[in-house]
């Protein structure tokens, strides 16, 4: 391929008027005009239909009444404060991490926000996460009590405080000991929150959208170390490890998650001593972990391949042991490159958690949506469309925001361009 500099044509520098825009984008040729008119009419029709459905015809009463059931299932009402505390603490935690990253980026001079003023920063945040804020606001508007409002307000305050703390901490250089304490603290908070929450409501009773979110997170976190080990084994020169990990990865990638979940539903109790018979939620998480470990392994393998050979050769030349070559030189670079693909895998798993609802009979968001249309008040009115649109919307907001963030990160990391 020859590289030629194409000079910007002078025509594009002229400020084109609306007529020019229309001609260029809609009516270039006769065929183009026909297509524009047909599809234009179709889009207007669809827009009107969607508008009418959302604001006029849609009977959203069913969602408003069942909001709690859809979001957290049959979580006991008296334990709602536990959930509120968990959300606030996790808000603080998320804020600290965001602040730490921002501070570190500032130190390293890679921050994208450095050149922005306050207004630009806010608009950047709104562009990136506005959909999620808007959705939370919408859900809050559908509630009838003050509790959720208070929780989210406190979570927001906690996140801001956490951001400030994290930024202050991130801007300073710390000793090795302080670093380790910090890492352990950050890793310990989610575990602590998890233990605190399960003490109030056992894992087996986690339902609704809460189940979809937490089980996807658990699946991806638990599968990550397994995936890294599998990827390293697959790349190693040790024949036994290599063939075992290839067999695992290929067999799991060849089997449908739905069948694995059905299998787990009827037979996981056969494979462990009778006393350990796992609950449905645990079965789902175990299956998610087994399943996504194979995909994570392939992602990490891609990351390992993206690290130039010279890196490990240089490490070898410095006399580092095989373990140190991998853990200090190759893996950090590889894992940094796989973050976007990891987010993609998380999105896939997040969407696939709906399968657990059907396969295991967990009252997740989708199953809950089916269940509420069978309530005596709403039965037989064809409300399934409203319920499904709500479900699809929640999943869509989460997946869309995450996929855009992952694309942004990909551009920032320059994966594949260097």
């Amino acid at each position, binding site marked *: 391929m020859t590289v030629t500099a194409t000079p910007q044509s002078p025509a594009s520098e002229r400020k084109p008027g609306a007529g020019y825009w229309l001609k260029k984008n809609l009516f270039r040729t006769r065929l183009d005009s026909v297509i524009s008119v047909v599809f234009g009419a179709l889009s207007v029709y669809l827009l009107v239909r969607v508008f009418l459905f959302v604001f006029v015809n849609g009977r959203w009463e069913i969602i408003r009444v069942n909001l709690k059931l859809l979001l957290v299932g049959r979580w006991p009402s008296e334990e709602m404060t536990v959930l509120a505390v968990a959300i606030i603490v996790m808000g603080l935690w998320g804020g600290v991490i965001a602040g730490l990253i921002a501070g570190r980026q500032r130190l390293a001079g890679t921050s994208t926000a450095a050149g922005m003023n306050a207004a630009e920063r806010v608009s950047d945040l709104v562009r990136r996460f506005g959909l999620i804020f808007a959705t939370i606001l919408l859900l809050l508007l559908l509630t009838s009590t003050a509790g959720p409002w208070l929780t989210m307000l406190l979570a927001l305050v906690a996140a801001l405080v956490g951001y400030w703390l994290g930024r202050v901490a991130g801007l300073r250089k710390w000793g090795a000991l302080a670093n380790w304490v910090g890492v352990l603290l950050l890793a310990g908070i989610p575990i602590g929150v998890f233990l605190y929450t399960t003490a109030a409501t056992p894992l087996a009773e986690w339902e609704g959208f809460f189940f979809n979110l937490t089980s996807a997170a658990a699946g991806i976190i638990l599968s990550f170390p397994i995936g890294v080990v599998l990827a390293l084994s697959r790349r190693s020169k040790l024949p036994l490890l290599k063939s075992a990990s290839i067999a695992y990865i290929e067999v799991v990638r060849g089997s449908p*998650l739905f069948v694995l979940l059905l299998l787990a539903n009827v037979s996981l109790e056969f494979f462990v001593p009778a006393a350990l018979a796992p609950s449905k939620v645990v079965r789902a998480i175990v299956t998610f972990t087994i399943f996504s470990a194979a995909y994570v392994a392939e992602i990490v393998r891609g990351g390992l391949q993206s690290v130039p050979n010279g890196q490990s050769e240089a490490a070898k030349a410095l006399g580092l042991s095989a373990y140190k070559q991998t853990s200090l030189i190759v893996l950090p670079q590889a894992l940094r490159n796989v973050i976007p693909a990891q987010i993609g895998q998380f999105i896939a798993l997040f969407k696939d958690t709906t399968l657990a609802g059907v396969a295991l009979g967990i009252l997740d968001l989708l199953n809950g949506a089916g269940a509420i249309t069978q309530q005596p008040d709403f039965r037989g009115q064809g409300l399934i469309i409203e319920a499904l649109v709500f479900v699809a919307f929640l999943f869509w907001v989460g997946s869309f925001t995450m996929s855009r963030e992952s694309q942004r990160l990909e551009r920032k990391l320059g994966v594949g361009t260097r």
Partner: protein
Amino acid sequence: MTAPPTTKAPVPEARTPFYRNVKVLAWAFQVTVFFVVLAFLLWLWSNYLTNTANSGIPTNFDFLSNPASFAIPGAEFDSNESVRNAYVIGLMNTIRISIVGIILATILGTLIGIGRLSKNWIVRKLSTVYVEAIRNTPLLVIMTFTFLGVVLQVMPTIEEAWNLGFIIVSNRGIGVPWYSEVSGAALFAVVALAFVGWWAVAKWRHGVSERTGELARVGLYGGLTFLLIWIVGWWLIGPTFTLPMIDGRQLEGGIRIDPSYFSVLIALVIYTASQIAEIVRGSIQAVPVGQGEAASALALSGFQRMSLIVLPQAMRIAIPPLGNQYLNLIKNSSLGAAFAYFELTNVTQITVGNGSPAVPAFFLALVFYVALSFITSAFVNLANRRFKLVER
């Protein structure tokens, strides 16, 4: 892992003791890991054997010969036939929906992928909205929507079916015209012969094109040959068509497309097309811009530029990820079990519900799925090798 550079100068006869020999250590390490994993698997296996023995559940595959004791609508299968035959029908239905789904999803996905790069603003925006909306929604939600929302709600009951004369739409199924009174094998042979004819004519036209520089026009000549052989062949065997009709509460004549099949297929196609569209778009963008510009400079039309210059090169890039999507579609067809489509998973689920042992039954289903995946990847690899750029 290669041995680290050892300093050989001081004592020549000092040999590395085995506990410091990297090769020995590596083997010791992997044998240890291997046995730990093996021990874990054996533990699971022994638990399985004890637990099944305690509950009196068989662990062999004898259940395959038992009567299935369930019926499969739309197939010549009654409940006295063996579970084995039920599996065969389930597998066939999985393959049927996968092949049709792959073809339709590829067509739709390619169109939308090209649409995302269209110069027409409306087409571009509509394609983008489609891709972003569908790609970020769970497939199961879409499938529930096509089944509960569209098929069971929008489609009319059989009494009020939409009768277009040759197509009848109702929630009992969609009736379309179909041939009758001839064997499927003969018709298949004619179609296969027509394809061979197309292939031969294409080869001949390519030869002519290379010798004389004339346009090959494979699509025109090949298509005409195909149609000719098809029409003559069909006229010779003489099948008759029957139109679908409503007989009481049943659809008669033609062929009935099952509502489950229809909704599962539509959802699979809609979802996979959104993924394929992104692959097609990425591959087209990966083709150097100069290629398209050169085609324009040679005065090729927009269609020719796309079909002769850009798409063939883009397909080369697109084949591996497309193959992944085909694998996903085959695996996702297992969701049909949740909507009463009698494919492999559904058959397995029902036979387990009827008392077949769960672990062997699902194991068999998994073996089929893994085998299907391997066969599909083999085809994809074959295509990849065939289309790969031949380099020095």
